[in-house]
């Protein structure tokens, strides 16, 4: 069986990456909005985002809206590529196993 990317191959992180992959390459989303789309706790989401950031798959940019700090998130180019490779591997696996 082909090696799957272990950073992405965990349901919670897979959902995070899948959500970020729906954005266009130049688009970004705020932390609370991403949290809302995933229905995760802030702590849980932060933990998974840190792992994805450490792997170089997610980039965070911190800015301000008025006096309030805002964190924007997006997939990096390697992150998007890793997600595409991951889904391509799974699709090939499905075809291979005849299901």
């Amino acid at each position, binding site marked *: *069986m082909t090696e*799957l990317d*272990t950073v992405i*191959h*965990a*349901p*919670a992180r*897979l*959902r995070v990456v*899948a*959500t970020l*992959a*729906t*954005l*266009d390459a*130049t*688009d*970004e*989303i*705020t932390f*609370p*909005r*991403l949290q*809302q*789309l*995933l229905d995760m706790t802030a702590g849980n989401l932060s933990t998974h985002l840190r*792992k994805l950031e450490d792997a170089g798959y997610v980039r965070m940019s911190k800015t301000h809206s008025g006096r309030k700090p805002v964190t*924007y998130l*997006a997939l990096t180019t390697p992150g998007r590529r890793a997600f595409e490779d991951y*889904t391509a591997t*799974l*699709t090939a*696996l*499905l075809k*291979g*196993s*005849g*299901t």
Partner: protein
Amino acid sequence: MSHHPHDDQPGDAAGLAAADSLRIVREQQDRARSGLEPDGRLLCLLWGVAWLVGYLVLWAGARSSEGIPSGGAFIVFGGLLAAAVVVTIVHSVRRTAGTRGASRRAGNLWGGAWCIAFVAYPFIIGGLGRAGASDEVIGLASNALACMIVGIMYLTGAACFGDVSLYVLGTWIVLTGGIATVVGMPTTYLVMALLGGGGFLVITGVWQVVALRRGRQQRALRGARAAVGQDPRDD
């Protein structure tokens, strides 16, 4: 770091685990897209009802008072359109909140184009009146111009966002403007209600059928997986 339970299993189990992961991706992406994009069905239904009811009121008013609808009819019509505008803006702003980038900018520019067109609109109609246009000409021109703006905005939106169904809707509204003008007053209002408002409602129905069919297919797929003992797992 958690591991998927079927990581190291070859054959069918790996195939099913792969199917599970792909299902997680598909469901989450559907959820993300519907959470981030304005609901076309809701907006189309809203505008369909506003046009259908509003123009029927104008048509009824025009028939009962020698071609010109009463002030009350125009107030009902204006109130319905104003309500639809407010709901559309609030809904769209809420759905796209918390994002930034090229797509958001494109959406903002497109939304701005609607405002620009409808800011100029009353000046054009007013100018025709000052140049001596009759009530009938003003009635025809105001409906035709509204149809052209709305229809062409949908056509540009379709080109901008790659949405074919929006293109169909735009084509329909532009053609409705042509037909509504040719038939003359007060039938213009009836055409606007039935072809224009009705057009929105037909598109709403088509989108709803497509969405329901898609939901059914996904549920059937899930049911088939559950039948072979493959329950989705979460962290």
